[in-house]
């Protein structure tokens, strides 16, 4: 079976496959299973990532509804929760153990399964070959494996929700000793083992994907497609992959050591612990070591989540304001700046762990330095829409929302990156508000912009605009209503990850506010279901697109047929003659010039 699969790949010019190989773009009937399940077509794999991501997003968001009910209304009971969660919510009241399980799973699912796999998995797969002019990825087989490792990781994570002792419940960062010792928490039993196995498989998936993205971008660009003619989406996805390749292995090593500590009696992270009525024999390990290993991925991970959104927002903002992206090179340089600095700021998550204050001060400097490339990007986006001809399509609305949220969430990072302020704000709701706005909602807005923009490429149909606008305004307003007041709670010192605040005289004044936030969160949850409905119905019932280039975009993906087969272009891959942002009069009444159009005599290249 796998043999035929290899032959079906687009790069068949090598070895003994050449004689039996046929080019991917030649149409031939494929079995349903080969075409849609074990597909090696990058477009199908992208859709697989997207739909798996959507399913995970619904689960992860539903968890947040459950724990927001507890946070907002600690004295009420919700029998409906018992229907969903059974014994974990006996009588309609969430147990603290499962509350922490839900919080942990919400974080893990959204950060890794949705905003890493679901976001860069989808768009790197869909866009890289289409926008650089390649028939498929460098290794379609590895690409397929990348999805299937993600799928197996998903199954392990899903199963962990149903084990008797509950899923991992030590927070998505799973700091040992809490996560290492079964005595410390119920969730640190089998649930934690499954969590670690799942995450290890996830790392494999991410590396297989990332290596493929990088080698495809570097080696398989079509004729004339120099690096400086690439759309910014590709640049962003390129650096996303680089970040993943260099940081996920470190996380993996951290997990391996944790698995050893949990199961084989080592003491990498454990020292001088008395728990469950007895002193453990572990001596000499360092709990802080895990945090260094974790955040060496954990911080680049934030940019793994942000960069694809930045790239897609750049593309969408430029396209729908009919104007080239402002400062193309500055955008690339700022991406490089962010990528390099992303590796040098991890310890700003650890200012109050007792780490040397001198080391802390170096991380303050490097952390605030990263604000500079971020600021450059914001100003360039603003200048991009300046004097544009803005069409408020649904993807454009989300791209504009992305910029607004990125500003709001980015600015609060300036507080947290400064250790002298972090010493009070650390692990309060200020942090929750900051990262939810910037890498949660803002990254989601980048993703939504991408989905609405490239949906016609994926399925040859439009999504429903009216539902799109409703989805946009409910989510945009809702996100600010949820997270803006959380800053106040954080400034007042309210710690995160609390099950109930009513016993605290310093924090219980926010009870009615917590209720308000919960109601807003539930409304936003249902607003996302509007999107889900729109997405799935539009796949089958959406209005068909009639032209191959519905947005009037100069980039290559719109030069393919409306429903491109495996191999993308019928006939030869087009040659590229200009950069991706030539939004100017082409002389035929169009306000853009496709990348495939040769330069006119006397015309200056960008």
């Amino acid at each position, binding site marked *: 079976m796998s043999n035929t699969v290899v032959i079906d790949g687009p790069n068949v010019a090598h070895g003994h496959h050449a004689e039996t190989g046929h080019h991917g773009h030649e149409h031939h009937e494929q079995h349903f299973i080969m075409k849609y399940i074990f597909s090696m077509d990058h477009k199908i794999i992208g859709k697989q990532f997207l739909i798996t991501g959507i399913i995970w997003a619904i689960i992860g968001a539903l968890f947040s509804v459950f724990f927001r009910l507890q946070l907002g209304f600690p004295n009420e009971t919700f029998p409906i929760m018992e229907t969903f969660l059974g014994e974990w919510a006996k009588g309609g009241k969430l147990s603290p153990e499962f509350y922490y399980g839900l919080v942990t799973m919400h974080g893990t699912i959204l950060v890794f399964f949705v905003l890493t796999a679901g976001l860069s998995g989808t768009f790197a797969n869909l866009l890289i070959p289409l926008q650089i002019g390649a028939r498929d990825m460098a290794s379609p087989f590895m690409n397929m494996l990348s999805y299937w490792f993600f799928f197996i990781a998903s199954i392990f994570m899903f199963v962990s929700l149903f084990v008797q002792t509950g899923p991992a419940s030590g927070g998505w960062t799973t700091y040992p000793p*809490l996560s290492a010792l079964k005595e410390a928490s119920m969730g640190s039993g089998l649930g934690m083992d499954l969590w670690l196995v799942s995450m290890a498989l996830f790392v494999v998936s991410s590396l297989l994907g990332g290596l493929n993205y990088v080698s495809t971008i570097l080696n398989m660009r079509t004729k004339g497609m120099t690096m400086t003619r690439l759309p910014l989406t590709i640049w962003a996805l390129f650096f996303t992959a680089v970040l993943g390749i260099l940081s996920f292995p470190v996380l993996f090593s951290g997990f391996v050591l944790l698995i050893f500590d949990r199961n084989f009696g080592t003491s990498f992270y454990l020292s001088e612990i008395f728990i469950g009525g007895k002193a453990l024999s572990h001596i000499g390990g360092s709990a802080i070591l895990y945090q260094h290993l974790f955040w060496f991925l954990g911080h680049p991970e934030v940019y793994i989540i942000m960069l694809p959104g930045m790239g897609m927002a750049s593309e969408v903002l430029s396209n729908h304001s009919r104007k080239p992206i402002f*400062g193309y090179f500055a955008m690339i340089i700022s991406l490089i700046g962010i990528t390099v600095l992303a590796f040098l700021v991890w310890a700003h998550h650890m200012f109050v762990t007792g780490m040397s204050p001198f080391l802390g001060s170096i991380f303050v400097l490097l952390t605030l330095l990263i604000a500079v490339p971020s600021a450059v990007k914001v*100003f360039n986006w603003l200048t991009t829409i300046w004097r544009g001809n803005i069409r408020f399509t649904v993807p454009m609305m989300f791209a504009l929302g992305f910029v607004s949220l990125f500003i709001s969430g980015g600015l609060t990072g300036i507080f947290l990156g400064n250790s002298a*302020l972090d010493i009070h704000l650390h692990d309060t709701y200020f942090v929750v508000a900051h990262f939810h706005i910037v890498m949660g909602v803002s990254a989601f807005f980048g993703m939504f912009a991408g989905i609405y923009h490239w949906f016609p490429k994926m399925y040859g149909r439009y999504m429903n605009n009216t539902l799109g606008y409703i989805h946009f305004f409910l989510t945009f307003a809702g996100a600010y209503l949820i997270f803006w007041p959380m800053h106040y709670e954080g400034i007042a010192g309210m710690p995160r990850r609390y099950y109930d605040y009513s016993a*605290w005289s310093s924090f219980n004044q926010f009870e009615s506010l917590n209720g308000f936030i919960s109601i807003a969160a539930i409304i936003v949850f249902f607003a996302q279901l509007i999107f889900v409905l729109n997405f799935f119905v539009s796949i089958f019932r959406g209005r068909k697109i009639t032209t191959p280039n519905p947005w009037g975009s100069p980039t290559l993906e719109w030069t393919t047929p409306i429903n491109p087969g495996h191999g993308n272009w019928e006939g030869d891959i087009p040659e590229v003659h200009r950069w991706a942002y030539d939004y100017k009069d082409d002389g035929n009444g169009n306000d853009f010039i496709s990348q495939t159009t040769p330069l006119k005599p006397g015309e200056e290249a960008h």
Partner: protein
Amino acid sequence: MSGFITIALMMLVFIIIYQIAKASEYAAILKGEDKIRPQVNRLMAWLLVIFFVLGLYGIWMCHVALKDKMLPVSASEHGVKYDSMFMATMWVTGSVFLLTQAILFWFCFKYQSTEKKTSFFYPHNNKLELIWTTVPAIAMAALVAVGLRNWVAMTSEAPKDSAIVEIVGKQFNWLIRYPGKDNVLGKRDFRKIDDANNVLGQDWNDKANMDDIVAQNGEMHLVVNKPVKLIIGSRDVIHDVGLAHFRMKMDAVPGIVTTIWFTPTITSTEMKKITNNPDFIYEISCDQMCGKGHYSMRGTIIVETQAEYDEWMAKQQSYYAASQAPAAPAATEAAPAEQKTDSVKAITMK
């Protein structure tokens, strides 16, 4: 049951929204998309402006509603510096926030697509880009400078005359130890911990332990205007000593000792007057996820004058006397008679 009715209602709302959306799409096609598109565009431009205005109003309303629920004036010297630095950062980021958001929404409205308009081909301008690289860099450098000055002050060595108090986290409460008359905390060893009579694992061969006082109710007493150095530890998992009123926090990590120091400047009694709340109390919150009881890991701090503190301290009994008394009669001799009866009582009660 009501849950299911709610869900059914939700479904109904969904179906209605979907039908309306579908109908509006058909209407758009019927009327001709070229006609509808400029109308929708104008509508969206206006909606964004309305969103911005309502947003500003919402920010103001949020501030009015919550400003009285914030922390009172800082109760430590460090905290005063923290508060002023926080406000400075707030001014910088707040003005950038307002400026950039206003520009974003203004541009959206001003440059909305019209029939006649064409966009301005403007791919780059090196001078502009240089300006908005250097200006944020300078602003950041200033904030880093202020931040590091405060950071160095906060994390510097505690003054020599500081009081020393140890605070140890365990699932799910705080243990507090005072060094006693010798002002030295005795040695601890986690292997000597016994929940019945040696909660911190004090080494009774170390004489410095004899006069150490241990409070298991999580109540810490501090003297106003006297610097205090907290020696922070943990028995099991990572906890965090969160002192919101003093604008401080530090992790409690098993296997290592962490410290912070600060000077409390307002007594609990004064703070009751300042906040107009007779029940006001300084709280120690656990700020690092530590298990199912994380949210209930509460400690308290009483800040009092030296006289009040001395009076309270005189009533305390060393943990050695309280827990090991029958086994070591020599120690009980040193303790005042009145306290001896107390400890006997405590033991007989068990």
